[in-house]
C-alpha cells in the first residue's frame, strides 16, 4: 500500500468508531427496567387495569397525556371516555398519580432506561418519594 501507515491508522480509527455500540457497554451492567405497580391504590383494585390496554399505554401514553393537556387546560374538558366506554377524570395528579404514586419505581424506571426526560414536573407538582400524601 502507498502511504500505508496513514491509511491503516485511519482504518483503525474507523473500526473503533463503528464498533462503539458494542464496545461502549463492555463491563457495564445490563439492568432491565421493571416498572412496579405495587402501590396501595392498585392493590385495592380487583382487576388491575389502566384506563387503556397495557400495550397502548406502553406505546402511546405520551400522546394521551399530551391530548389531555389540551383538553383540560385549553378546552376545559375534564372527562375522558376510554375505548371501553368508561369515564375518567382528565387529571395527571388526581387520576394517573392516584394509582401510580410511585414515580421513582414506575415512571423513572423506563424513562431513565431509554433516556427520556419528560418535562411534566416543570408545571406539575413532582410526587415525593413514598407517595403523594
Amino acid at each position, binding site marked *: 500500500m502507498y502511504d500505508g501507515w496513514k*491509511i491503516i491508522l485511519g482504518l483503525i480509527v474507523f473500526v473503533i468508531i463503528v464498533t462503539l455500540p458494542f464496545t461502549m457497554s463492555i463491563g457495564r451492567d445490563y439492568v432491565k427496567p421493571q416498572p412496579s405497580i405495587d402501590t396501595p391504590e392498585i392493590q385495592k383494585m380487583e382487576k388491575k387495569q389502566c384506563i387503556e390496554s397495557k400495550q397502548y399505554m406502553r406505546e402511546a401514553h405520551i400522546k394521551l397525556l399530551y391530548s389531555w393537556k389540551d383538553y383540560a387546560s385549553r378546552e376545559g374538558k375534564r372527562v375522558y371516555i376510554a375505548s371501553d366506554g368508561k369515564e375518567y377524570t382528565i387529571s395527571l395528579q388526581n387520576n394517573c398519580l392516584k394509582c401510580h404514586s410511585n414515580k421513582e419505581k414506575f415512571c423513572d424506571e423506563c424513562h431513565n432506561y431509554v433516556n427520556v426526560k419528560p418535562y411534566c414536573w416543570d408545571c406539575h407538582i413532582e410526587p415525593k418519594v413514598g407517595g403523594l400524601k
Partner: protein
Amino acid sequence: MGIGLAFIIVLGLILFAYIGTEILGLESLFAVVFPYLAFVIFLIGFIRRVVKWGKSPVPFRIPTTAGQQFSLPWIKYSKVDNPVTGWGVALRMFFEIAFFRSLFRNTKAEIINGRLYVGSNKWLWIGALAFHYSFLIILIRHLRFFMAQTPTCISIIDSVDSFWQIGLPMLYMTDIIIAAAALYLLGRRIFNPQVKYISLPSDYFPLFLILGIVATGILMRYFSRVDITAIKELTLGLAYLKPTIPEGVGSLFYIHLFLVSILFAYFPFSKLMHMGGVFLSPTRNLANNNRMERHVNPWDYPVKHRHYEEYENEFREKMKKAGIPVEKE
C-alpha cells in the same frame, strides 16, 4: 426509468420486511440475523474497499488547485488551497471533510438573453451540509439505544436537538432538516434536467432508502408510536451480543431496522463509500510539491539500458574499420 426502478426496489424491501414480520413472523431473522450480517458486510466491505484503493499507485501529485502555487519566495502563495506542506494538506482535508469546500465552489451556468452567465450556486452545498450533519447527529443520538446508561454527552446532544420543545414527544430539529435536505437532494435529481440526465438508479436508490428510514423513524416517534422500552431491550441485546426478541415490537420498527440493515450492507458497494473515499481523494490529500521532491512513478518498469562505453567495447574494432571515431583506442 432509473428513478422508478429505485423506488420499486425500496418499496419491495419495505413490503418484504412487513410480510416477513407481520405475516410470516420471522422476527428473529429481521431483528438478529440481518442486522448482524449487515454490520459484518459493512465492516469487512469497507476495509477491503479502502485497502484496495490504498494499493493503487499515485504516481504524481495532481495540482488541480484553486490557489496560487508555491514558487518564488516573494510571490504569495495559497497555503491551504495549494499547500506544499503536510500541515497545509491536513488543513485542506479538514475543510473538505468538515465543510465540503469543493462543493462551496459549485457554480451554475445559465444562458440569459443569449448570453452565458456563470455564477456561484450554494444550494447544493447547503443541502449537502444540512443532510450530512443531521445524519451524523441522528446517528449519535441513536447511541442511547446501545448503552445501558446513556452518557451525558449524548443526553446533551439530545436536549439541544429538541431545544424548541415543540409537541410531545419533543420535535427533533434534525428530523425536519434531514427530511427537507434529502427531499431537496432528490428533487434536484428530478427537476434539474442536467442532473436528471446523469442520474442512475444507484443515485436514486440510496436517497429513497434514506427517505424510507427517515419516514419510518418519524412515524415511530411522532405518529404511530412504538414500545420504545421493548425496542431498547432488542437493541441492547444486539449490543451485548445476547440477542433477545421482546414482545410488542411492531412491524414498523422492523421495517426501519431492515432498511438500516440494507443501507449498511449496501454501503461498501456503492457511491456511499465517499465516506471513506473523501479521505483518499488524490486531488485533495497530496501536497503540491511536484517540483520540490522527486516522486518516482511506481508504474515505471525497469528499462533495459546500455551505456555507450559498453557499446563501444563491443563494436570498437568494427567501428574503427568503418572509420567511425571512437572515444578509447
